[in-house]
């Protein structure tokens, strides 16, 4: 584990360091430093060791007070793919997602057990600063939540607090283009982000999340508050994002999961990760009977 990636060390040399680590993590196929733990994982999730693992949960559990919200989760999420998390309401999808960038820290009652590794490093280690972690892992929320600031300032905010001192205009434009919003807003960058439509607001939030150039983007039902046209735009966007980023998306909509994701994780009631694998296989030929029942709409 000596060569493992230390998030906490990242803060001093953010810009150069991030670029170097990315090249290291994505283009060179180094042996996975945590291969030896494969034996612990559940049978249905073994076969994806070929892809480059970015996020790995090892016996990850979450309790809210005395209530168990996540039963031990073991899973590896591959780089530069879209992983969909599906399951019935209350099964712990959001809880799992919030473990990845430690947004659970904000919930007083939440207790996390086990490990959640980002490029091999347990993000719950003492020496990991959640602030540094969140600079690597962007998040898009269920309801669009732009700041009551101008469109420009919304996108620039992450870069500003991270001390970016390069060409801000260029980065803002790049992020807005990346979020497929540039053409719609390029003449009104000084207007409030709140004056946009719901779908535009959500794409603005995506632009805000990708502007600091994270490695992973987490999305918690990003299209559930949008109409079908806006949803289609966001789905197209997710497809494009996967070329550059690792995307983990929670969705209630199984057609959506099937359309946009490469891998799918199915959580079922009780906070259990029941099955994980290629999206096509999960939807056509699930191993688990309960997953099949859920996918075919027999319960949930």
């Amino acid at each position: 584990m000596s060569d493992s990636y230390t998030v906490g060390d990242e803060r001093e040399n953010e810009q150069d360091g991030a670029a170097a680590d990315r090249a290291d993590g994505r283009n060179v196929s180094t042996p996975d430093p945590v291969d030896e733990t494969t034996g612990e994982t559940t049978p249905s999730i073994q076969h994806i060791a070929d892809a480059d693992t970015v996020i790995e949960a090892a016996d990850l559990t979450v309790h809210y007070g005395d209530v168990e919200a996540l039963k031990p989760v073991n899973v590896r999420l591959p780089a530069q793919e879209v992983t969909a998390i599906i399951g019935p309401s209350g099964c712990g999808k959001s809880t799992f997602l919030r473990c990845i960038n430690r947004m659970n820290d904000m919930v007083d009652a939440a207790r996390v057990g086990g490990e959640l590794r980002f490029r091999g490093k347990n993000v719950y280690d003492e020496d990991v600063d959640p602030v540094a972690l969140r600079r690597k892992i962007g998040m898009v929320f269920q309801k669009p939540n732009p700041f009551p600031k101008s469109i420009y300032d919304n996108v620039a905010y992450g870069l500003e607090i991270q001390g970016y001192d390069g060409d801000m205009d260029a980065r803002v434009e790049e992020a807005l283009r990346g979020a497929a919003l540039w053409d719609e807003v390029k003449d009104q960058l000084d207007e409030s982000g709140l004056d946009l439509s719901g779908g535009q607001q959500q794409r603005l939030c995506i632009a805000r999340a990708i502007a600091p150039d994270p490695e992973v983007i987490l999305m918690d039902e990003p299209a559930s508050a949008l109409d079908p046209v806006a949803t289609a735009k966001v789905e197209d966007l997710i497809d494009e994002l996967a070329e550059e980023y690792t995307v983990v998306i929670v969705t209630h909509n199984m057609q959506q999961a099937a359309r946009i994701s490469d891998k799918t994780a199915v959580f079922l009631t009780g906070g259990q990760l029941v099955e994980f694998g290629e999206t096509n296989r999960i939807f056509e030929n699930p191993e688990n009977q309960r997953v099949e029942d859920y996918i075919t709409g027999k319960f949930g």
Partner: protein
Amino acid sequence: MTRLPFGLGGTDDGRDGDGDGDGVRTDSLRTGSVRTDGGETPNPFANVGDDIARKQLLGRVFVGICGASTLVGIVALFVLLGDVLYEAWGWVTLDFLTYPPSRFIENYYPDGRGAGIYPALVGSILLIALTAVFTMFLGVGAAIYLEEYAPESRLKSFIEANIANLAGVPSIVYGLLGLAVFVRFVGLGESLLAGALTLTLLILPIVIVSAQEALRAVPDSQRHAAYGVGATDWEVVRDVVLPAALPGIMTGTILSLSRAIGETAPLIMIGAATSMFRAPIEDVSGIPVPDLFGPFAAMPMQIFDWARLPEGDFQHVAAAGIVVLLTILLLMNATAILIRNKYEK
């Protein structure tokens, strides 16, 4: 509008008499279904229940009582204001605002040598300005700590309950505290600073509670958005929470301050002067500077001082003082309302 010469249904130009242009005589259809036998239409709700009328009456009586209660308050206020304005009519002059008080009523007359409320006016304004600075820092600081940082615990709820209780403690008790702590123990004497610190203690609980409410009203989704792009706790508070809560905090603080400006009891307790000839301002090489450690008079006490003088015309002088005090108070409240309206959408 253009018309097709040979459109389908081209003969129908909408002139069917009912004006909706659909070519159907809607009126005849409508009435046909209701008028069954040409006689009086029976009321289908006639026998639904006779208690409805009684309940309606009860409701009207209740509304009447509530309306009357409102009226009592408003009428009392207007009578009071009217009386004060009537008494003060012609006494609030420029001289009244710019001259120190006098014990001789002749000096207050329009052709007199000039006398007025100037030292107490300046004293009150400085007092409130100092109090505003102290409460802004202490009150907002405490509210931010309690809302944004302090973990949920017994201690926190204990502290919050006590802050709420402190808001109900009579102002004279704060005067006693100010006397013991600031005047005697710290040794500030009967100074402007001691007065401002005492008034700060008095309104601090209300400022904290209202600032907490303003902070609580900032949706969590905003905080999460900032945390999500890697903001620290401090950056979240500075960039997201405070800007969103500031209008509410300002409104609450200004309204508390406008209560403090009329307070008399705590100032009597700490031994502030009832009437001063000099405003608490020093000349430091030509520049007027507030004299924080010197004695001061405030408007409510000056008004009280006039009101208890035996000579009849001093009642007019007191009324004039009240008008000045109320004007400042209304200006402060108007500022609070302006701030609220500006940021509320």
